[in-house]
C-alpha cells in the first residue's frame, strides 16, 4: 500500500484513510467488473445445466403462518407434478397445456424455501438469498400484501419473475404493479363487487356498517372497496377502525362496537387475526344483539377454509368471498384436490390453490416462450387465456398483470358434514361483474414500467 518507511505509530489519520481507501479499491475492483460477467443475457440463466431452481418465499411464522404452511405444500406438489411425479394433478386438465411432466424445458425443477416472517425486511432478505445465492429464476409466495409488494419490487429491481401467491390488496396490481410481477389471486375490488348484490339480497338496503381493518395496504384497499360497494347498495358507514396486524387481542376494538349504532361488522382481517377477532366478536355477544330492530351481522370479505377451521362454530352463516374452494366440481379442481389430499391428507386451501396454479402457469409460460428469460416469459403470460385450473376461463390481463375470472361468494355452513366442509358456495359471480378498467380510481397511480432481465 504505502511504501513510506515510517513506523506505524507516526502515521497520520490521513495516511490511514488513504491506505484503507486504497486497499478497499484494490480488493473491490475485480468484483466491480465481474458483476455482469456471468456471460448470460439474463440473471440466473440456468444455461446448459440439468436443473432449474424456483424460490418459494412464504410466512412460516406470524399471523399468516397457517396459510404459509399450506402454500409450501402446494409448491412441493407442483414441483413433484412438473417433474413427472405423482398423478400429474392439473397438468392433465390445463388448457392450453404444454407441460409434459419432464420438468421445465427439459430441466428438472428444484426449489428452495424461505421464511418471510410476515415482515417486509425478512421477506426481502430471504428473496435476495434465493436470487443471489441459490440462483432462482422465479420467486413465488406471499400471504401478506405488504410483503408481496415489497418482494415484487425487489424482483423487478433484480430482474426475476415474481408470481404472487396469496395477496389480495388492490395495490399489488394497482398502485404498486410491476412489469416482472404477476397475480393470479383476486383482489379487494373483486370481493366488493361480488359481495355487494349478495349482501343486498340477504340483509337489505338499509344497514350501518362498522369496519375493523388490518392496518396495511391490504386492509386499506379492501376497506375502501367494500365501503364503495356497500354504499352503492344504500348502506351507510358508521365507523372505520384500523387495528395492528398480529394484535392477538381485539377486545379493545370490539367493545366500542357494542355501544355504537352499527348493525353490521365488517372484518377486514385475515389469518389468525380474523380467527381471533371473529371469535372475540362472537364471545362478546355481537351476533345475539339486535340494533335498530335488525339482527346484528358479521361479514368477512376475504374468507378461507383454513380460517373457517380456526374459528370453528363461529363462522356459521357468515358471508364472505373466496378465490377458490375445494368443493368445486370442475375437472381441474377435482384433480388438484385428489392429488393434494392423497399426499397430505387434507383438502387444499385457496392459498395452496393459487400458489400451485401460479407455479404451473410459470412453467407453462416458459415452455411456450422456449426460454427462462424474464421478458419473454412476461410476454408469454400477458394476455394469456387458459382454463381447467379450477376457476373456469381465466385471462392474465396485459395492462396490469392481474388474472380475471369468476369470484366465489361463500357462507359459513350451518351443518358441516366434516371438519373441512365448512363453507358453502352461495354464488359464482361471473367475471364481467367483477371486472374493472385498468385505470380505475382504486388502481390508479401506478406504472408497470418496463420488464427487467437483470443483466
Amino acid at each position, binding site marked *: 500500500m504505502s511504501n513510506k518507511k515510517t513506523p506505524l505509530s507516526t502515521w497520520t489519520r490521513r495516511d*490511514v484513510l488513504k491506505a484503507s481507501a486504497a*486497499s478497499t479499491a484494490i480488493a473491490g475492483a475485480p468484483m466491480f467488473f465481474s*458483476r455482469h460477467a456471468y456471460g448470460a443475457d439474463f440473471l440466473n440463466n440456468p444455461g446448459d445445466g440439468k436443473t432449474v431452481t424456483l424460490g418459494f418465499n412464504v410466512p412460516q411464522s406470524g399471523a399468516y403462518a397457517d396459510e404459509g404452511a399450506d402454500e409450501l405444500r402446494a409448491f412441493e406438489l407442483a414441483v413433484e407434478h412438473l417433474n413427472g411425479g405423482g398423478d400429474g394433478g392439473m397438468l392433465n386438465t390445463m388448457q392450453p397445456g404444454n407441460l409434459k411432466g419432464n420438468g421445465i424445458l427439459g430441466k428438472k425443477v428444484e426449489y428452495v424455501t424461505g421464511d418471510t416472517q410476515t415482515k417486509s425486511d425478512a421477506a426481502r*432478505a430471504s428473496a435476495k438469498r434465493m436470487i443471489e445465492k441459490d440462483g432462482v429464476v422465479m420467486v413465488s409466495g406471499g400471504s401478506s400484501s405488504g410483503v408481496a409488494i*415489497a418482494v415484487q419490487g425487489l424482483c423487478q429491481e433484480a430482474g426475476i419473475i415474481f408470481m404472487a401467491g396469496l395477496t389480495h390488496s388492490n395495490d399489488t396490481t394497482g398502485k404498486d404493479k410491476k412489469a416482472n410481477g404477476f397475480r393470479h389471486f383476486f383482489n379487494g375490488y373483486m370481493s366488493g363487487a361480488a359481495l355487494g348484490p349478495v349482501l343486498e339480497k340477504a340483509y337489505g338496503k338499509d344497514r350501518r356498517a362498522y369496519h375493523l381493518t388490518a392496518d396495511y395496504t391490504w386492509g386499506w384497499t379492501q376497506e375502501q372497496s367494500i365501503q364503495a360497494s356497500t354504499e352503492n347498495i344504500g348502506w351507510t358507514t358508521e365507523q372505520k377502525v384500523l387495528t*395492528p396486524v398480529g394484535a392477538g387481542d381485539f377486545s379493545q376494538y370490539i367493545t366500542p362496537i357494542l355501544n355504537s349504532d352499527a348493525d353490521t361488522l365488517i372484518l377486514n382481517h385475515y389469518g389468525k387475526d380474523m380467527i381471533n377477532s371473529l371469535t372475540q366478536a362472537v364471545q362478546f355477544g355481537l351476533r345475539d344483539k339486535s340494533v335498530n330492530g335488525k339482527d346484528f351481522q358479521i361479514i368477512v370479505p376475504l374468507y378461507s377454509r383454513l380460517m373457517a377451521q380456526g374459528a370453528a362454530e363461529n363462522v356459521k352463516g357468515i358471508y364472505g368471498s373466496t378465490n377458490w374452494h375445494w368443493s368445486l366440481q370442475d375437472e381441474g379442481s377435482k384433480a388438484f384436490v385428489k392429488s393434494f389430499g392423497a399426499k397430505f391428507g387434507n383438502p387444499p386451501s385457496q392459498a395452496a390453490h393459487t400458489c400451485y396454479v401460479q407455479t404451473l402457469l410459470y412453467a407453462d409460460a416458459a415452455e411456450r416462450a422456449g426460454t427462462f428469460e424474464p421478458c419473454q416469459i412476461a410476454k408469454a403470460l400477458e394476455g394469456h387465456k387458459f382454463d381447467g385450473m379450477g376457476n373456469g376461463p381465466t385471462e392474465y390481463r396485459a395492462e396490469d398483470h392481474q388474472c380475471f375470472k369468476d369470484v366465489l361468494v361463500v357462507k359459513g355452513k350451518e351443518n358441516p358434514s366434516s371438519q373441512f366442509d365448512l363453507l358453502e358456495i352461495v354464488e359464482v359471480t361471473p367475471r364481467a361483474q367483477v371486472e374493472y378498467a385498468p385505470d380505475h380510481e382504486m388502481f390508479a397511480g401506478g406504472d408497470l414500467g418496463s420488464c427487467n432481465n437483470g443483466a
Partner: protein
Amino acid sequence: MNKSSGLSDWVLFFGFAAVVLTMPLWLAPFGAAYPDLMQKFAIFGVFAIGFNILFGLTGYLSFGHAAFLGAGSYAAIWSYKALTMNVVPAILFAVIVAGIFAFLIGYVSLRRSGIYFSILTLAFAQMSYNLAYSVLTPITNGETGLQLTLADPRVLDAMVGIEATSSLPLPNFFGIITTGIPGFYFCATVLIIAFFISLRIARSPFGMMLKAIKSNQTRMAYTGFNTRPYLLWAFVISGMYAGLAGGLMAVTDPLAGAERMQWTASGEVVLMTILGGAGTLVGPVIGAAVIKYFENIFSAFNKAELQQIFSALPDGLENIVVSVASMFVGKGWHLTLGLLFMIVVIFLPGGIMEGVRRIGRLMGIGKKPETQPVSVANSQQGQANG
C-alpha cells in the same frame, strides 16, 4: 497522538480491515458469500459496534436502539425521495436524524440508571414503533413500508437532469450502484471506518471516562465529575451509529419498514453484543455475523435438504435424524440460536471473544493477531454481563 495505543492497535485495525474486505473469499465455504448476507454482516456490525460504545464501555443497557436504526432508515429513504439517489446525503441525513433522536431520548432516559434506564429506552422505542406503524403513516407508510416511487420529486437529481423514466432509480455512490457486491464493499468500508472511530474512542480520555463510569459511577461523582454529559454523548454517538446502520440498510435496499423499530430488533443487538463479547472491540461484530448467519442460512434449510445431508445413513435412522434435526433448522432456527446463546452465557460469560482468548492462552503465543490487543484492553469486562 497514538502513544497510548501503540503498534498492537494498528495490527488489530489492519487485521480487521483485511478480514472484512476478504469476506467474499473466506465466507464461500460457509455458503454465506452472497452480497445480501455480507451486507447484513457489515451493517449489523456497525450497529453492534455502536451499541457496544454505550453498553460495553458505560454498562448502560439500552433496550431501545432499534428506534435509531429505524429513524435512520426512514431519514435515508426520505433523502432519496426528496433530494437525490446519491447515498452520501442519505447517510448524512440518517446519522443526523438518529443523533437528534438519540439526544432527545437520551436526555430523558439517562436521568435514571440500571433497569429503569433500560425500561425507559424500551418504552421510547416501542412508542416510536407504534408511531411509525400506525400514527405517522403519511411519513412512514405503516406496515407496507416506505418505498420509492417514480413520481418522487428528487430535487437535486432533477436539477442535474437525471430523471427516472420507466424503472425505479437505484441508490448510487456517485454513479456506482450500491446494491449487490459494490454495496457490500461500500458497507464494509463504512464498517472499517466505524471500527476505527470506536477504537479511537475506546482509547481516548473520553473512553477512559466511560469505563470509569461503568466501574463505579458514585466514586466518579464524589471526585467531582459530572457523569451525565459523558453518558449523554456516549448515548448520542451510539445512536448515531445505529442511524448509520439504518442508513446503510437503505443504501443496499431502498425500503424502510416499521418492524426495524420493533423491540425484537432492539433485543437482537443486545444478543449480538453479549454473544460476541460486550466491551470488546471485535466481539460485537462477530456476534452480529453469527446471528445474521443463523437467521439467513439455518432458517432456509428444509426437510428435503436435510434428507440430502443425511442420505448416507440407513433409512430408519435417517428419518429419525432428519426429524430431530428439522426442529433446529427452518422455522426452528430461533431454538438453535437460543441454545447457542445459553451455552455462551453459561460457559463463556465474556462471549465468543472470551472463548477465543481462552484458546489463545492454551496455545501460548500462537494467538490470532486480532484477538491479542483486545485481551489487553479489556481485563475487566464480564462484570457487566450478568
